[in-house]
């Protein structure tokens, strides 16, 4: 007999601010979180608009100054979201056996803080080349001995463990959104099978720096002329990069009920597929996405007609959106009753990259909790002939939503779908 899994804590970080209230209130109002970025130094004209969390003040949330000094932006985001999620859940980590509380997260790739690399490279240059003799003699000693802490991708999990006193099973999943979604799915399976009782899962990311943005440009994911995030839209011409993410507490349902925890929703299904055909970062055919959603539906033990609401992966990249739309049609075309509502929230948030999957997972849980569907702000721009879905309206509305699906079909080979159920 499988244990049921409850979502009992949510910590959000986004350009809207820190915390789930501020993000949720903005999303309900249909507010976008973008600003012009082309003047921002670290973007160096690689991006016109994006979601940049300008006044993020990590020291307001992380009291441990020594630790804070070691953390890059991604790690700070994840740590702040983790603190929020644990507080929200009201779990006291000291009162439960450490081996029952796991932490499975991802923070994307750490491209390294550029500021830290500048002195190393400058001090190594001989005739325009990085000279190894100079590197060893002069450059290394001028850089912070703590450089490695900002680069090693396993450190965020360690910082969070220290800040929150979580000592249980742990894994780090990288580099993209699909892998962070796996962090949620793997913990889900372990709680279902009784291997764990609690898990802190999800991730956060920041790609608003020139190295990451150049890489994304090379991969064809973003382009400098993109000025609108319009999933399934006629005028959407690329991904709008944002930063942020979500950390989430998953908990054994019995334990959650026993301590009378606030339960946002129940996680009931996890599907994942690996794209072995595509030669680019996005899938070449819809079949791999169809299978992913169908696997999640089977895992949840429901039928597709039960699904009321889908938060799609759709990120305004023409190919990615088209393929996902085809897959959704394939899965739901012969539904006897009404089709699920489609709600592409990246029109408001942009793409949080590695942080996208957990953020949208959390949003879907909030939709179920609040019984409130979020707006589709780019509705006018959507090509209704091509995408004849039932989109949510331009304004948030109260509605009865019992089952929600959220897709993570962003870049990379790993595709993930989740099914969440309203908790009554």
């Amino acid at each position, binding site marked *: 007999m499988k244990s049921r899994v409850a979502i009992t804590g949510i910590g959000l970080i986004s350009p809207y601010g820190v915390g789930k209230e501020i993000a949720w209130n903005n999303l309900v109002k249909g507010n976008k979180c973008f600003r012009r970025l082309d003047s921002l130094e670290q973007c160096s004209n690689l991006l016109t608009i994006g979601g940049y969390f300008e006044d993020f003040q990590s020291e307001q949330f992380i009291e441990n100054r020594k630790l804070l000094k070691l953390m890059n932006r991604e790690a700070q985001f994840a740590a702040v979201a983790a603190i929020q999620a644990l507080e929200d859940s009201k779990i006291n980590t000291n009162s439960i056996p450490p081996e029952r509380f796991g932490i499975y997260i991802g923070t994307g790739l750490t491209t390294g803080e550029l500021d830290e690399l500048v002195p190393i490279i400058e001090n190594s240059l001989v005739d325009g080349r990085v000279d190894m003799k100079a590197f060893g003699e002069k450059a290394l000693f001028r850089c912070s001995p703590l450089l490695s*802490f900002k680069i090693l991708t396993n450190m965020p999990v360690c910082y969070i463990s220290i800040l929150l006193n979580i000592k249980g099973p742990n894994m780090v999943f*990288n580099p993209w959104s699909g892998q962070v979604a796996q962090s949620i799915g793997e913990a889900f399976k372990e709680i279902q099978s009784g291997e764990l009782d609690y898990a802190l899962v999800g991730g956060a990311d920041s790609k608003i720096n020139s*190295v990451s943005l150049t890489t994304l440009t090379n991969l064809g994911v973003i382009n400098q002329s993109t000025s609108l995030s319009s999933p399934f839209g006629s005028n959407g011409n690329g991904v709008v990069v944002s930063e942020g993410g979500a950390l989430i507490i998953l908990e054994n349902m019995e334990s959650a009920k026993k301590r009378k925890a606030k339960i946002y929703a129940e996680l009931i299904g996890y599907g994942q597929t690996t794209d072995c055909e595509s030669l680019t970062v996005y899938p070449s055919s819809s079949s791999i996405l169809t299978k992913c959603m169908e696997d999640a539906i089977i895992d949840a033990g429901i039928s597709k007609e039960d699904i009321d609401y889908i938060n799609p992966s759709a990120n305004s990249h023409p190919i990615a959106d088209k393929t996902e739309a085809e897959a959704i049609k394939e899965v739901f075309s012969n539904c006897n009753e009404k089709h699920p509502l489609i709600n592409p929230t990246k029109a408001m948030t942009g793409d949080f990259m590695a942080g996208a999957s957990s953020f949208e997972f959390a949003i879907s849980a909030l939709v179920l909790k609040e019984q409130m569907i979020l707006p589709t702000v780019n509705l006018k721009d959507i090509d209704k002939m091509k995408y004849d879905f039932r989109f949510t309206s331009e304004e948030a509305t109260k509605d009865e939503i019992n089952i929600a699906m959220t897709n993570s079909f962003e870049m990379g080979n790993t595709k993930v779908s989740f099914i969440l159920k309203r908790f009554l």
Partner: protein
Amino acid sequence: MRRVVITGIGVVSPAGSNAKEHFKSILNGKSGIDKISLFDVSTMLVKIGGEIKNIPFESLYSDCPELKTITDRKIYFGFMALQEAIHDARLSDRIKECGLNLGVSLEVLPIEKLVFPDSKINLADFFAGYLKNNQSLQVPLDTLSMLMIRKYKISGPSYINCSACAASTQTIGHSFRKIRRGDNDIFICGGYDSMLNPLGLGGFSLLGALSEKNELKDKASRPYDRERDGAILGEGAGIIVLEELDSALKRGAKIYAEVVGYGSSLDAYRSTDPEPTGAGAEQSIRSALDDAQITPQYIDYINGHGTSTPKNDLVETKAIKKVFGDQAYNIPISSTKSMLGHLIAASGAVEIISALTGFLFNKLHPTINYEYPDPTCDLDYIPNVMREWDGKYILKNSFGFGGQNACLIVKRYEK
């Protein structure tokens, strides 16, 4: 309960470029550590490491033409170990349903290859321009997974584990749990890594984690020895094929051993040091024992984390004593890192494979360079010479940087 066995292995290490060579070297106590030749280390604090010699580039290109554009060396030996394990397990068409679970630490920025127009640089502008023209400079973290997925049309789940020193032990433990639970039948898991690049070597040496006794060369890595003063970095790859027992029996696969327990934990102490009492490590060992449903007295050999750093070896010894009590003194322990150095994300998998000599040849490899007993590290570390052994249960420890711990228990296969 479904049982999980090892049906294929592949290893590329400083001691050998396939499992056979590797086993021969480590049983004979031969070190793979020497002066670093990959780049000019004459002014570096640390000048020694465990390099992979003689990567057969040409034959790898003919096997996988996509490799030609890839500059990151760890992809090459990761690929070699994967190929060896896949062939060894004779997976043939079953490979399509396999899961893939690989540990790797970082994308490397090869600063030694950078050329700048002038000495005052705006790094942001520079990278924007440079990366545009040199797209392959920084090799994406999922490159090798993608390459394998496409080459073999692997449709099982694919994971990329970035837990640094504990990564590949975790990939094996995670895959083991998934097979036992019934999520999948076969996993190709392990890790590949190289920190032998200027930023990797430089970064770790700034932390003071590495031995600076360059003159000792192959004698510098001396786990549990009183004179140990730091780890030596190495590079390599270790891949294991894990399979559900009935699936393995049905296709007549060779069975190396059975995986019976896994546990992981966090020190939650400090980012720089292990928790001094060994509590985190202890919890990880106990979790693995509980998972295997055995008591401590069943363990017959421990393949240690044994990094050769003063603190890590001491804490590991304390943790072993806490779990095993007086029996700790009777359990042979050895550190593969004494011969290979620290392979970071590849270390756990390579070391588990190294421990399989106990089942394959009834021999345990030694901890080499053990000369001066440390009164605080006073267990049986199989000093310098391999040992005959007919035990049943092996415990593998990986107690990584940042306080991430993972332990596996592997058992001699019996019907």
